[in-house]
């Protein structure tokens, strides 16, 4: 049977709880927004219940440890259409097994989840690398990103540790929300009008005085360290796929 939910992780866990309550299993679990409609079935919409979600979390932690829960939370951020079902299958298998199954790479569900987690990890790592802050006139360091997956929630820890004494804002231009740190804590933020934030380069009147100079210096540094005798465009693209170039001031032609 097909289930729909509100698109949150807690919502998905509520669905899983509901399948146990109804003594059934899910054939598909999709966010209600993405349900395409079908002639043959009407999906069951499950409302998110914090209490249910919490009980499933406790169950996962008991059987599979904190690591298993983290695995599922990370995979959920992939936004892959099949991920809801995978997480459901994992929880079922975990609960039915006498031992922790989270490192059983011979199992298809476990293996697939680990592969997704690896992709998420890679994207997080890319964001650590490719975020490029531009300093604004009011002294906020601003960066726009459009990650393949919804990894923004996984970023604060790294940037808080690195830049505790500066204000910064990392904005997901596609999902249209950001994380803002004010030297105390990080908060999720969204803006009714995010027009100015969508530019690769901030509008001139928003930029701090020396901002462009440093962008230019960085590009000239990047150009100077190249060794043309070793040129290897294939390797270069493998490390910096073209879709990430737009973030990178060193890849820009003009300022």
């Amino acid at each position, binding site marked *: 049977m097909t289930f729909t939910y509100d698109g949150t992780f807690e919502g998905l866990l509520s669905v899983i709880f509901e399948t146990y309550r109804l003594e059934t299993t899910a054939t598909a679990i999709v966010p209600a927004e993405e349900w395409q409609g079908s002639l043959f079935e009407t999906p069951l919409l499950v409302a998110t219940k914090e209490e249910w979600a919490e009980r499933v979390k406790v169950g996962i932690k008991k059987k599979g440890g904190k690591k298993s829960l983290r695995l599922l939370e990370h995979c959920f951020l992939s936004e892959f259409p099949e991920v809801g079902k995978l997480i459901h299958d994992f929880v079922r298998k975990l609960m039915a097994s006498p031992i922790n199954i989270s490192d059983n790479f*011979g199992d298809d569900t476990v*293996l697939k989840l680990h592969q997704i987690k690896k992709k998420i990890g890679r994207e997080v790592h890319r964001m650590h690398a490719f975020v*490029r802050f531009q300093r604004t006139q009011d002294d906020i360091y601003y*960066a726009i990103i459009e990650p393949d997956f919804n990894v923004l929630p996984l970023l604060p820890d790294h940037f808080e540790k690195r830049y*505790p004494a500066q204000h910064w804002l990392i904005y997901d231009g596609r999902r249209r929300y950001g994380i803002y740190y004010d030297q105390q804590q990080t908060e999720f933020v969204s803006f009714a009008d995010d027009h100015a934030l969508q530019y690769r380069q901030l509008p001139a009147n928003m930029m701090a005085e020396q901002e462009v100079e440093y962008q230019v*210096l960085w590009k000239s540094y990047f150009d*100077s360290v190249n*060794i043309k005798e*070793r040129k*290897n465009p294939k390797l270069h693209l493998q490390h910096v796929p073209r879709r990430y170039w737009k973030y990178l001031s060193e890849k820009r032609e003009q300022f």
Partner: protein
Amino acid sequence: MNERVKEKLEILADAAKYDVSCSSSGSKRKNTKDGLGNATGMGICHSYTEDGRCVSLLKVLLTNHCIFDCAYCVSRKSNDVKRAAFTVQEVVDLTINFYRRNYIEGLFLSSGIFKNSDYTMERLVRIAKVLRTEHKFNGYIHLKAIPGASDELIHEAGLYADRLSVNLEIPSEMSLKKVAPEKNYADVYQPMNYLKGAIVGHREEKKRIRSTPSFAPAGQSTQLVIGATPENDLHILNLADSLYAEQSLRRVYYSGYIPISEDQRLPALRQPPLIRENRLYQADWLLRFYGFKVDEIVDQQYPDLDLEVDPKMAYALRHPQLFPIDVNQAPYEVILRIPGVGVKSARKIVAARRHGQLRYEHLKKMGIVLKRARYFLKCADKNFSHLGLYPEAIRKEITQPKRAKTISNQLSLFGTN
């Protein structure tokens, strides 16, 4: 910031780029609440050059003025290039501002030798000191220890830097004398040995007194230039092995010689020996993480690495009697010896087999490179031992991937030749 700084940056980054070390990992420097940066994790490549090298640090020379005349170096005295020198403040500003924008993990500062070793070293130390003390900078700092600099300055450098390196550059002293008349091994080994002692000393002390300041927490490294002089891989790997064992180096870097100069003292290479360089890194990896000994990789009979296949494959092809290895039985260290199985795969195998016998299908799904590994392993449903007896045929199959694809029947392996 003005045009002049940009020009200096271009000259001094260009001159520094031949030092291959770009690692920003291995330190444990944490940030403070009001500080800038940290150097705790793996180290991040913030960009990649068009030749695919990691850009992690702002890697520059303080100056490319130099009183020495090393044949392999662009900055040598007799070379006709534009010269420039940064001020202390300029390097500090660039580092801080690049770091704040998340361009870099930190600074890698080296220098040509102007006036003398101590004079140069003192400037390098001062930059690190200003960054750490005035700007509370806790990002990564790699300083070059200038050969011949005094122990006091080397010591001070260790208090501010995460890593220090002294480059041996040329893999034997005899060759070094020929291409760098002012240099000798003693001047390089002296700071290396001093650092080794100081690093160990500080670490011991830190165990007893936690507030002991850290001293070069990411250790020291060196670089060897490959292909400029006639040393073979056996010689080079033995040298590296002894540097790891005796000087406790964290890393030895290998840099394929790029014919940057038309200096008579050096061979005229058409291309840098990039494949050899890569094979040396692979061999180095086997020494450090796979439990291989130098004489298992190269020996008197085969003093040079096989350019056609990687060193682990070469080892397997020379020792067919040790294979196939049973992935369901063999201990972890032995599984690591299967070509195509890396550290991660080996760990996965050992974890997964507790849940049941591993079959070919499982290995495939785990992402093991079976195209290479299959000749050397045994799993629950497949045993390729009959193939393991024909090392030359396997070599052919592996080094000619295109042709192999058109051959659907594996038995035709034996039909050819």
